[in-house]
């Protein structure tokens, strides 16, 4: 009757086995984006951590004999800037600041915004309205203008840049998490947990949070890229890292004056931003696939 069973039992078994193997391969392929992203990020983290081992020069040492050396000349693999500082060293040490922004700024806003959204969504009522109006207030301003205003008020420094990001960018997490929590609160397993006499804290953190966190986690990867670009933008505007501290955005900003004669000054830090940005994006995509598969 059924065409599936044409062939000897061993042939059928073989076919089933081949299908299973195919499924396993596709599972690996599905995770490929995540793996590639993690490897790229791993390379970036290792490179900036091992900067003193990888390059002998300090990022601020001036090689008076070789200013604006093109890549590969004068003993500088990626060349030097207008003061004769080694570009590779500056990229690696500068990456420390950009990656610190990616992790430090993002993790704090991720955790803070998630908590606020969770509480607002679960408790509802006046607390919810109050918190969400604050969120609306932040969304009413252009994001970059708000950050620039805060830094201008506090004075340009790396810590103030962190502070400005912490103050402003938790709102996206709060809004996403609140929406997720409001939906989850109506789920029967939440009702069942409450029917067992579990405290609000327990219901929120043990029952709702693990079921709703995937959205904010995936968003945090996008946000990390955004924060690196933000740090670079602020550096470019002179509101981030102050000279002579190397930072990718500031390096691009410095390099643009020489873009016609010494292209590498702006291009190489730009590529570094792109590399880390792509790494985070791939991780975000990979996580989205993985977490959504888990929800099914």
């Amino acid at each position, binding site marked *: 009757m059924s065409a599936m069973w044409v062939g000897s039992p061993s042939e059928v078994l073989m076919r089933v086995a081949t299908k299973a193997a195919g499924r396993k391969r596709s599972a690996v392929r599905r995770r490929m984006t995540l793996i590639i992203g993690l490897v790229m990020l791993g390379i970036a983290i290792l490179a900036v951590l091992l900067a003193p081992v990888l390059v002998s020069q300090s990022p601020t040492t001036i090689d008076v004999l070789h200013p604006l050396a093109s890549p590969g000349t004068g003993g500088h693999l990626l060349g030097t800037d207008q003061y004769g500082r080694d570009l590779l060293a500056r990229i690696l040490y500068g990456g420390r600041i950009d990656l610190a922004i990616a992790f430090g700024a993002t993790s704090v806003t991720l955790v803070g915004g998630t908590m606020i959204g969770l509480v607002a969504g679960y408790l509802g009522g006046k607390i919810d309205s109050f918190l969400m109006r604050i969120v609306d207030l932040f969304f009413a301003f252009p994001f970059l203008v708000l950050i620039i205003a805060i830094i201008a008020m506090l004075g340009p420094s790396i810590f103030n840049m962190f502070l400005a990001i912490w103050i402003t960018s938790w709102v996206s997490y709060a809004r996403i998490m609140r929406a997720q929590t409001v939906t989850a609160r109506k789920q029967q397993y939440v009702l*069942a947990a409450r029917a067992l*006499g579990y405290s609000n804290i327990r219901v929120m953190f043990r029952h709702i949070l693990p079921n709703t966190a995937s959205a904010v986690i995936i968003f945090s990867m996008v946000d990390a890229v955004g924060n690196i670009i933000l740090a670079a933008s602020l550096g470019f505007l002179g509101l981030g890292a102050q000279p002579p501290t190397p930072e990718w955005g500031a390096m691009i900003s410095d390099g643009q004056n020489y873009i016609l004669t010494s292209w590498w000054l702006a291009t190489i830090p730009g590529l570094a931003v792109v590399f880390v940005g792509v790494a985070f994006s791939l991780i975000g995509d990979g996580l989205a696939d993985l977490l959504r598969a888990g929800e099914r």
Partner: protein
Amino acid sequence: MTAPAAEPLTPSIGPGAPLLSVKDLHSYLATSQGVVRAVDGVSFTVHETEVLGIVGESGCGKTVTCRTIMGLMPARTVHTEGQVIYHPRNDINLLQATDHEFQSLRGADLAMIFQDPMTALNPVLSIGDQLIEAVRAHATMPTTQARRQAIDLLERVGIPAAPRRMKDYPFQFSGGMLQRALIAIALASSPRLLLADEPTTSLDVIIQDQILSLLLELQQDTGMSLILVSHDLAVISEMCDRIIVMYAGQVVEEGSAADVITAPRHPYTHALLDALPHAGERGQLRSIAGSPPSLIAVPPGCRFAPRCRFATDECHSWDTELIDAGERDHTARCWRQQEIAERQDSWQRSELA
């Protein structure tokens, strides 16, 4: 209206003592269309070790009644009135209980199992974790002991290879197994009253039977009381000591299971019994014509009148309370019940002819 005349005879402690008294409970839901009078003046008492059945069609207020008792209705959109007295805790009125009081009562004294076992467990925690959590929710004990208790519970509700299945996640369980696990979780702190809100509606008939026998067996073992909510009169009549029939947010008939099934007084109960299919009987199933009234704009008069084949003009204009139907604690919300009961026999005869 059902003044408990037999009060001096009922003991205040032990089997037969009142455990939970619901008095004139109203639960009104605010919706964008208007106020839904989901529960409108419901009174009943559950006694210790008793199995009370609540029956009625979808949307008649059974689930809202249960959730109001458990304090699970959202306070902002639901207005409740009346009293829900839980006797073992100094006659505490659950409608006025604080969050903290409710948290100590839920699980430990009152537990509930839900309609759809597929969604009533947290999908990201293993069955074992959720059981252990329930065991430890109202008693402090080391993890190993909680784990042992959790496995005991799983075995008690008939899950084979319990230690191995502790590691499984809800999606690895079948519907029937999930409902067993949920029962185990509900029983973790040995509640005195279990509210089972249509526990078998989403399960197939064989599993339904197994789950119901399990519930009854556990009820007898532990001596807890059970409120069994169902739209299935056959299930209710088989399992319960007493039956409450609900229609459009009100109790229309209450009495012992035997009385309600064999000598129903309210036309709605009659109609429900008529609608039961009988195995081996051929022919068309009899349904109840029409549909339940909107609970937003409730018409005056008896709420069942528009669908009642015995209704007269008076029925459409004025309503009654629960009226004593003669036998022990048997009441029905119909002022013509006596007349209808007498006519019922001739009705059936003429319909057969």
